[in-house]
């Protein structure tokens, strides 16, 4: 029963923590909607989830009248024949072990770098490729990202991992093609945030978007910016095109509270240290730092550097702009005039459009000291933990090992594991193997871990490897999925600048399938991205071409000179030949010296 509790709590949480996701189709009628959900996490972290959603009817979109929907993006979609688009900019790693389950069940998250997948309206593969090229180039200009580097080698067509989120008419389903591209090396930064904010109807000038600031966003331990565009057809209503922009960031509270003009952390004085007094060695001169959960006092302006400036007047007035998820027992102070709407574990705040919102969480009171968990909501348990790393050594071969752990004590997890690997990692598919930790032999055949494999081998310099594996993991089991690969040697011009850093390998996408798919359930119950990997390839000395030229030239010249001389010259006995080389020169010099010396002597 005790073990059941987290699972129950998780399902409850997933319903109430992120209501917009569940209610996405229900509230599609409202034209613009924005909400910020703040949720303190263990280890003095704070999750801030910004969500902006705007709709435009399909007829307005097609006639080119843009009001809430950004024109710049709308034109690109029209030009590239895009039905549905998903774009992700991410940085950092979601620490599932301590932070628990992901926001939006991982649906609004991407792997490190930039990820893009879209359903394009195309009948043939060539047409789809052409439109994909147009789309990536246009988005590249719009978001100041190197999306134009998503070429054939970085594009795949996933088969099992993705399904459209929007409502597409059945007639057009056969002419839609899914393309997926990823740039793991891209560094997401302020220049990507600025165009992101420009797409919002209220820009960054009013509403929750005023809290978004590049200094804070890209200083976070984890951040993910997402743009999702999909058609939504409410039953009985006109179809709308919906753009949803999401930013999730996990801020380190201590780090954020440092003043911006003096960001260097200073060590605290002895009396300010929080010590764990339960340790036996605790005394007046030894201190074991206490768990930082106790330090969860903050205010909105401390965390984001400024307070929220009013609300966006276009936003749906029934949706409170800011919600805070803390236990009921926790005290929260706000400005006068803010209306607090309390529900279980969640407090939302309504303010008038002109006033600034400020939130203040005082340090937890003494009554909460009996259990640290009372300060924050306990994090939910994700359905699966995944981590991926390289194995092996040397410059020739390597291996990839993914450790997948099902924490649930009684339900098995079915998911699709997708890798899109660069072409220079040639995997040996026969070495792919999944085994349960503790079982030395591969799993018995009557219950295979690997249910289905879709593999599209790489072509050198033309396309990357695509590997999709549908797996099922029994309850409370840890599975190792391993395979080996060979590193190929690149051509001289194919190495990027700073080749010795290594080559980024995109995150694996793990899509956990919804067991209640048959009903109205979503395709993916939960999505996980592993971290990206850094693969080091043998790198040459880049002055090599000149060295090779000079070396071979010397060898050729030596061989040629020797051969030519042997053929052309005449061989005579040593005493018959004329003097040549150094000996002749020395003789000449000696003769001259002797003559000068003789003249000198004669003068004397």
């Amino acid at each position, binding site marked *: 029963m005790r073990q059941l509790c987290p699972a129950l709590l998780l399902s409850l949480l997933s319903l109430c923590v992120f209501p917009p996701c569940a209610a996405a189709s229900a509230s599609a009628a409202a034209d613009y909607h924005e909400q910020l959900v703040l949720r303190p996490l263990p280890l003095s972290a704070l999750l801030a989830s910004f969500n902006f959603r705007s709709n435009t009817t399909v007829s307005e979109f097609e006639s080119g009248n843009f009001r809430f929907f950004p024109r710049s993006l709308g034109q690109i979609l029209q030009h590239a024949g895009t039905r549905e688009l998903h774009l992700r900019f991410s940085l950092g790693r979601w620490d599932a072990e301590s932070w628990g389950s992901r926001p939006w069940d991982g649906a609004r998250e991407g792997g490190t770098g930039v990820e893009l997948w879209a359903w394009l309206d195309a009948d043939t593969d060539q047409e789809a490729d052409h439109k994909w090229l147009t789309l990536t180039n246009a988005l590249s200009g719009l978001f100041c990202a190197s999306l134009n580097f998503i070429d054939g080698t970085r594009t795949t067509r996933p088969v099992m991992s993705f399904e459209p989120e929007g409502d597409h008419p059945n007639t057009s389903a056969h002419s839609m093609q899914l393309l997926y591209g990823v740039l793991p090396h891209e560094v997401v930064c302020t220049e990507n945030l600025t165009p992101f904010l420009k797409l919002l109807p209220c*820009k960054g000038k009013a509403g929750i978007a005023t809290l978004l600031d590049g200094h804070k966003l890209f200083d976070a331990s984890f951040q993910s910016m997402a743009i999702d565009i999909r058609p939504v057809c409410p039953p009985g209503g006109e179809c709308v095109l919906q753009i949803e922009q999401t930013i999730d960031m996990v801020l380190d509270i201590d780090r954020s509270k440092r003043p911006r003009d003096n960001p260097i952390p200073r060590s605290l004085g002895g009396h300010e240290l929080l010590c764990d007094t339960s340790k036996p060695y605790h005394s007046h001169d030894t201190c074991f730092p206490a768990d930082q959960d106790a330090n969860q006092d903050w205010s909105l302006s401390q965390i984001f550097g400024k307070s929220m400036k009013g609300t966006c007047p276009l936003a749906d007035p029934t949706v409170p702009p800011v919600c805070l998820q803390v236990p009921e027992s926790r005290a929260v102070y706000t400005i006068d005039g803010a209306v607090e709407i309390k529900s279980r574990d969640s407090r939302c705040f309504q303010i008038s459009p002109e006033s600034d919102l400020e939130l203040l969480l005082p340090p937890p009171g003494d009554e909460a000291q009996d259990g640290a968990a009372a300060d924050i909501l306990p994090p939910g348990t994700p359905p699966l933990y995944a981590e991926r790393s390289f194995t092996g050594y040397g410059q020739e071969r390597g291996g990839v090992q993914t450790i997948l752990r099902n924490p649930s004590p009684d339900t098995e997890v079915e998911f699709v594991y997708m890798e899109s690997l660069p072409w220079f990692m040639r995997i040996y598919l026969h070495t792919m193997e999944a085994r349960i930790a503790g079982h030395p032999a591969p799993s018995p055949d009557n219950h295979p871990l690997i249910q289905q494999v879709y593999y599209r081998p790489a072509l050198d310099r033309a396309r990357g490897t695509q590997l999709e594996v549908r797996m099922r993991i029994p309850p409370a089991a840890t599975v190792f999925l391993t395979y080996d690969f060979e590193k190929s040697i690149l051509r001289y011009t194919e190495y990027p600048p700073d080749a010795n850093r290594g080559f980024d390998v995109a995150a694996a996408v793990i899509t956990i399938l919804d067991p209640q798919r048959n009903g109205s359930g979503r395709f993916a119950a939960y999505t996980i991205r592993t971290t990206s990997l850094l693969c080091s390839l043998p790198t040459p000395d880049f002055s090599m071409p000149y060295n090779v030229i000079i070396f071979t030239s010397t060898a050729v010249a030596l061989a040629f000179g020797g051969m030519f001389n042997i053929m052309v010259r*005449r061989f005579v006995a*040593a005493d018959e030949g004329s003097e040549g080389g150094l000996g002749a020169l020395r003789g000449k010099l000696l003769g001259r010296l002797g003559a000068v010396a003789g003249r000198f002597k004669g003068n004397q």
Partner: protein
Amino acid sequence: MSLPQPPGDDGAAKSPGPAAGAETVAASSGPQAKKQPPPEKPSDVRRRSRIILSFWLIVLCLGLPIWWQTTSIYRADLPLHEMLEWADGKACRPVFPLRINIQADSLQDQEAQNLLRLTQHALDDLNDFSGHHLRLQLSPPPGHPPESSDRESALTIRLVPGDTATASLDPHEPVLDITYPPNAIPTATSSSSSLATYVAGQLRSTFAEEQATISYLLSTSSMPSESRPLGLSPESAESLAKRATRSLKYAPTYHLTFSLFTSGPLPSSWDIGAAIADYMKPVLTVLSPIHNFTIDTQVQLYATPGVPNEVLNKEDLSSFVNAAEWPLSPSIGGAPTINFVVFVGNQTIAGERAESEHANTGESAAHSWLIPQWGTIYLLPLPDGTAHLSSAALKQPLLTFTSHLLSLLGAPRSGSLPLRLSTLGRIRSADLLLRASSTLGSLARLALALPSISIPSSVADGVSTTMLHLRRACETLGGAEGLAHARVAEAEAERAFFEKSMVGQLYFPDEHKIAVYLPLLGPVAVPLVMGLINELRAWRRRRRERRERGRGKKME
């Protein structure tokens, strides 16, 4: 190379060396004691010569051509001479023959012919610019089906008897209505007529602006001076230059973007669809034979202009558009974008106005200005709290936008709308023709100036297509067909000029070549050259010896 040199190479160096112990003893006794090698067999000498000769032959006949072939840059043959001729205007004289129909139903055929002849005389006397030629013809009497030439006519003159001589342009059709007093009909014998002079004067003033524009275009291009007109006053040239820089480059499709920018949160919606349909669509429909238009609209709140001042000076107007923040990115696809911005805010323009010649409507003058080749900004002051802009409130901005659109497209300012549009077509074809020619000239000069630039065959194809279409455009100048040909020619010329692969190898410095070639060619060339020199010397010595020997024999 430790091999001993062939004997006789170095006759001067006969000094002793410490080669061997026995030799030092011999050498100390004198150079004469040096042992001579046995004389070479003639077959050996011949073989050596052949070896050296064959090496040199291989180098010269095989090595050099291969090297030349593999390192040379591909340069397609361009008709440089013809291209330069086009650029200099020697290949085509732009002539616009304009047909003008005279419709005189009330006149006898004989009278009409006479009037036509006199008017043509008067026109030819007035005209000083051969490129722009007005040709009169009688239109067929009503009831007959119109011939093909009738449709090509630029203007129809409708002569109607009346009290006094008046002229007025029909606002909807290219028709000039002229009334004449009954006594003004010239008799068959008279050599001059007041009516003919009057008609000629009217025609000339109608086409004066077109003539000036075309002659301005010709004078700014590198066309030879004989086809240029003489009389262009500096003021009119300046105003024409201003208009030419203001108008956009010709494109078959333009993209119109209507944006509502507000400095605060309101208004956030507008009836732009209805307003465009009411106030702008009629003009767009008339323009549709020449240009296509695509339209989109957007609303942007919380827009801060690039100039924070409340009162805008003339200098502020150019920096009013906040390019960094306002999402006015050009549309993707080939069509150029024209921006029409309605800015709702409390800014006003200082002084009476910025560009008075655009004040078609006096009221709008103080609120709007035109940004050359970009679009128009209209400042719309609104009472606080207006949440929605109705179609009626947008009337004035849209009328302003419409008149600015015509000047952005380069249409002349005077005349009736149909006449302005047909003039626009002619001006555009002249402009495109001159542009394409000058691009060809630039390409030819580039190819001449940079001998190391590669010219792929696609450039040569583009050039030949351009010249083909230029030739056709020149033949059919003035009509719709000429415009189409000029458009293709211009697009092809641009494509050929901006060919990407031409820039690739532009910079390949000589130092690199030396660094690559020297390590190989140096060590290989030294033995080859030395061998050749030695062989030549030996051959000369042998010849001399043979001659001496022959002389010695003779002496004996």
